[in-house]
Structure formats: structure tokens, C-alpha cells
């Protein structure tokens, strides 16, 4: 369990004070994949660096596995850090060392026989599918391969926790998916707790079970990924969801005033927030309530096993029957919004 209580971190640059993290409290359970999302400069990196105390919080406490890290001596802290792996956006492999030597690197604090370290490193390289490149130098590898070496290196000391700071942000979408799949399998096979820092909603959606949203150093919203993204409370969260979804175009359409509606028409948005989207809801309501739905946009995707997304369209029919249809949809966990009606 990682527990941050009222963690704040400020930097002073000249006379200026920058509050990078402000009063963040957070609990991350053992064995979960926890996401922290936010735009650039939100304080995500500073926050994750507070977890292994690369950055010492200005105030607040950091507890990992029941140990209060801010109270430990430097030597004890180094020991605790060996129980937490970390990977980075730019991989940070040692350029003068081969792939194998990079993976051995974190083991060399102990007097373990060389063969034993090599054996361990080769096992880890096999785990990340790179056994063939043990003798290569980092400069000879692709970005995805470098990140896999970095993961192998981070796992060398058998950590229980893996911290990932924008680990896929320098990679193309296909490679990103490969790395995410690797992280997911490490989580499943080793019970590794993974903390994922990112500015990409796709990353959180694809591997995280819970997410926290950061803005200007504050944690503005947190919860299960499906819940946070299907019914976002904060504007910044909506911006992330909106940026990833066509459904927000409907707001622009309604705001532009270019759409002219007849008296029995309204612009509606149905958002799916839970199971049930597999039912043909639109055709059910149009048939059952005798309505016509002219679909403008539809966007549904899966987060974990649950769908989120929705449909935007112009719904035509008399008000009482439309109300009946709305009630039917709400019963099935569909959020109903009327974005524009005929101004009469």
C-alpha cells in the first residue's frame, strides 16, 4: 500500500515560488494499476517522485508498505528504493553499458557472484523478449526495446512497486500498446503494483483500474477509471474525455446556433455509463415510443470490460412520448441530455 497524506512540494526559482504539488492525499492498493493523468506541468512527475522520495515533500507524509519514508535514514531509504522500480519517458539507460550490464547494474550493490547476476539478468531479458540483444548497446535499440530493457532493469531487484513516468510518451501507438501489454502481464503474473503517470487518456483507459486527475498541483478527482471518465465531475477530466471523444462536438453544435429545429425536434445526447450498451437502445425506444432518431454522432468504446460513450442525434416526436423514452433510458443507466430545443 502506498499512502500519501497531505503531500505538498514547492520549488523556489529565484524569488518565485512554484507549488508543484498541493495537498495531495492518495492511497494506492497492492497489486493495482493506478493512473495519474494531467496536462503537462500539472505536477504529475513531481508527485510520482515523491513516492520514492527522489523529491522530498515540503510537507506531508509518504508511507510505503507501512514505512514512513520521510522519517528514514539515507541508507534505509536506499534500501526501500530498491523495492520500487522506476521507468522513464526517455528510458535513462546507461549508454556505455550493454543491455545485459544495464540490467545487472542495480544488483551490484551486493556481493553476488557474477554468474548469478547474469543468470538473473538473462531471465529478465527473456521476460521482456530481448534475450537476443544482451550484448547490444542502448544506442543500437529502438525506443520500444529500450523501454523493455528499462523495465527489465527496474525489475532486477524484485520490487513490489513499479513507477512509470510517461513511460510510453516517446513511443509510437503500436509500441505503446506492446509496452502496456507487458505492464499488464507483469501486474497479473507478479502481482506488481504499478503507478502510471501520463497525459494520455488512452494509456489510462487501456491498463488502469483506478485513476486520479491532476490539475495545477491538485488532485481534483479520483476513482475507478470507468466512473471517472463516464461521469466526469471536473472540467479538466471532461477535457480529457472530450479530447478523446466525438460526443463533445455536440456541445459546439448546440452553442453555434446553426442548427434550426422544428417544434417536435430536440438535439439529444445519450451517454452510456455502464453495462447495457450492447442492447440496441436506440432502435428499442424509437420502435416502442414511435419516435424518429436522426443520429449525428455515435462513439462507444470499452474501458476495461465496460462500454462508455454515447450517441448524439435529433430526436423527433411528441413531448409525452419523448419523456417516456427518456425514463426508459435512465432506468438503464443512460444519461440523457437535451442540448437544444426549438425556441418557441
Amino acid at each position, binding site marked *: 500500500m502506498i499512502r500519501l497524506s497531505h503531500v505538498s512540494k514547492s520549488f523556489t526559482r529565484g524569488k518565485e515560488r512554484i507549488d508543484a504539488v498541493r495537498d495531495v492525499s492518495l492511497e494506492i492498493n497492492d497489486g493495482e494499476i493506478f493512473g495519474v493523468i494531467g496536462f503537462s506541468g500539472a505536477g504529475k512527475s513531481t508527485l510520482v517522485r515523491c513516492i520514492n522520495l527522489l523529491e522530498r515533500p515540503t510537507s506531508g507524509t509518504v508511507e510505503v508498505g507501512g514505512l514512513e519514508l520521510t522519517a528514514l535514514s539515507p541508507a534505509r531509504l*536506499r534500501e526501500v*528504493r530498491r523495492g*520500487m522500480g522506476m521507468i522513464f519517458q526517455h528510458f535513462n539507460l*546507461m549508454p*556505455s553499458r550493454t543491455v545485459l550490464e544495464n540490467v545487472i547494474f542495480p544488483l551490484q*550493490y551486493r556481493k553476488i557472484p557474477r554468474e548469478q547476476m547474469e543468470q538473473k539478468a538473462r531471465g529478465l531479458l527473456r521476460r521482456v523478449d530481448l534475450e537476443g540483444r544482451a550484448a547490444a548497446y542502448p544506442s543500437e535499440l529502438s525506443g520500444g526495446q529500450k523501454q523493455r530493457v528499462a523495465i527489465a532493469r527496474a525489475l532486477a531487484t524484485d520490487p513490489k512497486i513499479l513507477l512509470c513516468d510517461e513511460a510510453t510518451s516517446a513511443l509510437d501507438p503500436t509500441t505503446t500498446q506492446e509496452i502496456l501489454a507487458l505492464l499488464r502481464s507483469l501486474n497479473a503474473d507478479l502481482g506488481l503494483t504499478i503507478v502510471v503517470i501520463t497525459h494520455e487518456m488512452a494509456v489510462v483507459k487501456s491498463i488502469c483500474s483506478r485513476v486520479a486527475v491532476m490539475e495545477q498541483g491538485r488532485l481534483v478527482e479520483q476513482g475507478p477509471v470507468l466512473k471517472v471518465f463516464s461521469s466526469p465531475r471536473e472540467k479538466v477530466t471532461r477535457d480529457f474525455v472530450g479530447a478523446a471523444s466525438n460526443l463533445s462536438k455536440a456541445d459546439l453544435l448546440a452553442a453555434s446556433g446553426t442548427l434550426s429545429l422544428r417544434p417536435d425536434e430536440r438535439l439529444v445526447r445519450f451517454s452510456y455509463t455502464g453495462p447495457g450498451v450492447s442492447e440496441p437502445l436506440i432502435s428499442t425506444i424509437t420502435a416502442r415510443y414511435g419516435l424518429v432518431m436522426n443520429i449525428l454522432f455515435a462513439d462507444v468504446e470499452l474501458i476495461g470490460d465496460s462500454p462508455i460513450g454515447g450517441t448524439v442525434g435529433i430526436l423527433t416526436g411528441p413531448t409525452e412520448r419523448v419523456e417516456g423514452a427518456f425514463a426508459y433510458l435512465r432506468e438503464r443507466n443512460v444519461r440523457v441530455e437535451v442540448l437544444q430545443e426549438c425556441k418557441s
Partner: protein
Amino acid sequence: MQELINALIPHVIPKLDELWISLWQTVYMMVVSGGIAFVLGVVFGVMLIVTREGDILEHRVCFAVLDRTINIFRSIPFVILLAALIPVSRLITGTAIGTTGAMVPLVVGTVPFFSRQVESALASIDRGLIEAAQSMGLSPLGIIFRVYLKESIPNIVRVTQITAISLIGLTAMAGAIGGGGLGDFAIRYGHQRGQTDVTYVTVVVILVMVSVIQRVGNLIIKRTTH
């Protein structure tokens, strides 16, 4: 052939033994003072890096003292240093003349320059590597040896080449005040007695030394760059 050599360098031939001795005196000064300066320069260069703001052993006072001291010594011309350090030389080596007497000024003249060079070599190490090492639980000493120094080997060799070559120049100057060596040899015969051929032969010998330093250095750089 023998005649041609005699015609070209008439004054050198009778002094071959002395040239040989001068060469070894220069090599001796280079190796001893260069060796000491190398160790001190690396130590000071590392200290400048790790005590700077935001680095692993940040220490304002230590950094400021080192930084200013180096600047002061760097701004003193070497000839003045030679004279000014005579009492210090006597204290440390027991003499202020000859090759041994030249050691102290040579070290003092080289260390500030070399420390700055080492500092800039280490400064080019990516912060990310230090962070990665910290996250793996390395101690400050581990980071200095296994990241800062290990990853800067090619750059340190490069700045060592530059410093060694400028050290040749300093040994020649030290020679002029009785330190012996190739500089002394060239000045005594080539300059003061107008035996120009002695000067040219000395220049050739020095050029050979420079090229040996460059070749050895480049070989190490090539082997350690990936």
C-alpha cells in the same frame, strides 16, 4: 647521409645525450605533475558537480569556495606562479629549482584548468541517468563512480589530452627557470647561442610527444564510446 645530417643539424649531433636527458626530464615532469594534477582535477571537478545546486550532494558553501578558488588561480599567469610559489615549493619538495622544484607550480598551474574541464565533461551527463541511479538506490559514491565517471570516460580522456598538451607548454616554461627539460634545452642552445637547429629539433620532438598523446587518447575514446 651522415654528412647531410651534419649539415642540417650541426649543433644537435654533439648534444644527443643531453637532448635525451632533457626529453626524460620533460617526461618525468609530465608524468609526476600530470598524474597528481589528474587526480586532484578529477576530485575537484567531481566536487564542483555534485555540490552544485540541485545535485546529489548539494552544498552551497563548498561549491562557492571551490568555484572562487579555482577562478583566482586560473587568472594568475604561469610565469608569475613560478616565482610566487618558490616558498611553497621549498616547503613541500625541499627545493625550488630543477625538475623537482618545478612540480608544485606545474600542479598548481594545471589543476584549476583541468578541474573546469572535468566539470564540463561531467555536466554533459544526462540528469535522467542520475535520477535512474537514485531510484535504484545507489549511494552518492556509487553514483559518482558508476554513473558520473563511468559515463564520462570518453569526455574525460578528451579533456586530459588537451590538458596534457598544454602541460608540455608549461614544462617548457618551468624549464626556463632552471627546471631542465626540453624547453630549457631549446632556450639555452637554440635561443641564447643562436643554434637554431637545436630549436627545430626540439620542436619536432615535442610534436612527436603531442601526437603520441593524441593517438593513445583517441584509441581509448574509440574503445569507450558506444
